């Protein structure tokens, strides 16, 4: 589905990514963890076509150049358009694609059902809680029906309870829509809870340091011994990165 081949990126003399190669299969939930500021966000933005890079990125076997309609993106920031209602935000991508009105309305309704915010269609972002805004941002990214969802620490700025709730919601949405997800975070607990597979990145310039499959059954229990042991292993890998 996604394949990166020797992707590198530097800004001036600063190397941000160095020979990053990996692939993600269809329907997989991949989490990338790494120290803060290691270049995780840049990597995602390269895949999305928002940044230039050296090397090659293939989406469904085709070399990707520029913005790719097969990719949806959820930002770290609260990036909803404040001047548009929930409906207007979700409909933005379809409007750009000049999708027919009836189709648009139907898709918006389906997505509102999916994120369970039917009664908020006419609310403005500032009237929503942080967690609700994040759900709308996910719906906005899904509205143009991309194959792939790239998520850049989307739940970073939320409190712990909301995060846990959104992680469960995200898994439900993922299972229902069968998208391929690449999810960046620096929260190991979040990664183990969500991922089919976890990639650990080094500190800048980011390289792939280790890979862990997470073979736990879904509806994971964060306190189970298996969960804790995977978590420990990844934390150990990461810790080395933080020690200079």
């Amino acid at each position: 589905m996604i394949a990166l081949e020797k992707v590198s990126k530097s800004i001036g003399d600063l190397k941000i990514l160095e020979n990053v190669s990996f692939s993600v299969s269809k329907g997989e939930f991949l989490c990338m963890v790494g120290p803060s500021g290691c270049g995780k966000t840049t990597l995602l933005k390269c895949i999305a076509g928002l940044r230039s890079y050296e090397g090659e990125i293939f989406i469904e076997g085709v070399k990707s150049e520029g913005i790719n309609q097969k990719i949806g993106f959820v930002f770290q920031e609260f990036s909803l358009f404040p001047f548009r209602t929930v409906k207007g935000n979700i409909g933005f991508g379809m409007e750009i694609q000049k999708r027919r009105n009836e189709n648009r309305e139907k898709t918006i309704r389906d997505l509102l059902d999916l994120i369970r915010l039917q009664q908020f269609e006419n609310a403005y972002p500032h009237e929503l809680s942080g967690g609700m805004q994040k759900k709308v941002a996910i719906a906005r990214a899904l509205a143009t029906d991309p194959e792939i969802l790239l998520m850049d620490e989307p739940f970073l700025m939320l409190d712990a309870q909301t995060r846990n709730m959104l992680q469960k919601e995200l898994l439900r949405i993922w299972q229902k829509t069968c998208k391929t997800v690449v999810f960046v975070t620096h929260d190991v607990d979040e990664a183990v809870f969500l991922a089919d597979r976890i990639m650990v990145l080094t500190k800048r310039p980011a390289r792939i340091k280790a890979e862990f499959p997470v073979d736990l059954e879904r509806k994971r229990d964060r306190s189970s011994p298996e969960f804790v042991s995977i978590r420990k292993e990844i934390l150990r890998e990461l810790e080395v990165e933080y020690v200079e």
Partner: protein
Amino acid sequence: MDMRTQKLVIVLSFVGLWQVVALGVHTRFLPGPFEVTKTLVELMATGELVVHSVVSLSRVVAGFFLAVGIGLPLGIVMGWSRKMENFSVIVEVLRPIPPLAWIPLAMIWFGIGFQSKVFIIFIGAFFPILSNSFLGVRETEPYMIEAGRVLGATDNEILQKIVIPNSFPSILEGLRIGLGIAWMCLVAAELTGLKSPLGLGYMIMEARDLGRADVVIAGMITIGVIGYIMNLILRWAERKLVRWKSDRA
């Protein structure tokens, strides 16, 4: 005491203070509130005040719309394009020049008629409108633009559907400030002389020549009240048009 009563008390105390001071001074220098009110009513009854106000307002409207027509698009383009941004050097040098310092040049270029008044108003309104639209566009968060880009929006669509609506509050504020400054500049410009003997500034100047302090003050009050009302109207419009912003709720 609620806010409204408090405000009323403040206004009344001010008028009271005025009255007290006026009692100790010759009316030639400072007529009291009753006298000025009487003059105001007379001026309104003869229709004189309305004519002067309407003439003044028409000059402001012309200059203001000229400033909007040029300042708004220019500000947006300067905020959007990296190349055009460099023009802000010129703007930064021209901006601190008070609009009234343009009066001599306006008189050389346009004489003392309608055009030169409109020019002064234009100068006054132009800079706040320009810089507020410039800043509004420039301060659009990069992730907002990227959010549009990943959804497939072209540069043009991003400008029209994201950047401009997002800068709307800032643009409207610029219009409000611009109109306020335009109004102040107009009256000052009218004080410097006119071809047609109309306008609130002219009315005040003429009253000065006649030694009518009451008419001068009546004219000043009219200017203040009209400016206040214009500000109120634009604030109301801002609230109506920008319902999506939390701090304007």
